[in-house]
């Protein structure tokens, strides 16, 4: 169960922080350009943070108390392959979900 005080601190602080990130240049810095090395790193935040977040959840799922689950691994692999090749987020998720549901049905 999520602690209510923590939840609200996160909602408010994350809201303010996200606004700050969106406002920092538009509102404060004006049109001075960012240093090249900084934009070069910022370009890769999403593709670095999301996999780093997701990998442990895929390999050691919460639901199995950390035991590697072939069904979940397969579902994740299918989703990634679908997302990479057909570039449809929704369709890929549905495919992964089908594998997960099918696997749970056959082996569960």
């Amino acid at each position, binding site marked *: 169960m999520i602690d209510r005080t923590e939840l609200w601190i996160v909602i408010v602080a*994350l809201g303010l922080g996200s606004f700050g990130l969106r406002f920092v*240049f538009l509102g404060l810095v004006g049109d001075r350009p960012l240093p090249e090395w900084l934009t070069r790193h910022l370009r890769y935040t999403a593709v670095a943070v999301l996999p780093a977040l997701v990998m442990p959840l895929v390999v050691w799922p919460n639901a199995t108390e950390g035991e590697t689950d072939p069904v979940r691994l397969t579902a994740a692999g299918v989703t990634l392959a679908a997302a990479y090749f057909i570039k449809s987020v929704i369709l890929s998720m549905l495919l992964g979900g089908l594998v997960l549901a099918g696997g749970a049905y056959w082996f569960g």
Partner: protein
Amino acid sequence: MAGPGVKSSFWTGVREGLPFLLVILPFATLFGVVSSDAGLNAGEALAFSIAVIAGASQFTALQLLQENVPLVVVLASALAVNLRMAMYSASLTPALGKLPLWKRAVCAYFLVDQNYALSVVKFETERDLSLAEKFAYFLGATMPLCPFWYAFTVVGALVGSAIPTEWGLDFAMPLAFIAMIGPALRTGAHRTAALVASVAALTFAFLPFNLGLLVAAGLGMAAGAEVERRVGAK
């Protein structure tokens, strides 16, 4: 100066933003469902969506809140996902930087992936748009996005409380993230960043307080930037 040009720019924005409903509706609904699964009520889920308006960041924060990691790590990780917004902000500044402060604040609050992508292309290709028309276009493009983000978070939260927990919803969030990562792996540099971050996340999983996530993300970003520097591709 709300002339016909401004009005038509607004509606052009609305029209061009509409296809993104196909992304916004399912994701907002999913966030609502996952929040309700995590024990949030509809009001709390809505507050999350109004305060943050950023799917990946909201999912990250929600996931880490459930893992009982320190608040600093929750915030640092969720904000790291949103670092790209600073880039968007910088990139729109030449076009919108001359607006009055309150209008820049409005743009900043509503700035998300989709209206950024639309606006940056629009302002680049139609350079004769007036400042008022650009602002109107941005607001128009925001209309099919943010209000629906809020509304369908609530829908998801209400639906979610009716879904039994045995449905494997624990894995909906990882699958959503993976589905978001796939299309973003456009170049070798992006793929390297993702691969390095993935391997590092497993390698450094032993670190306390989920610090492995931040270490892995930093290594991934550095790897991506280094490949780009060597190859020269963007």
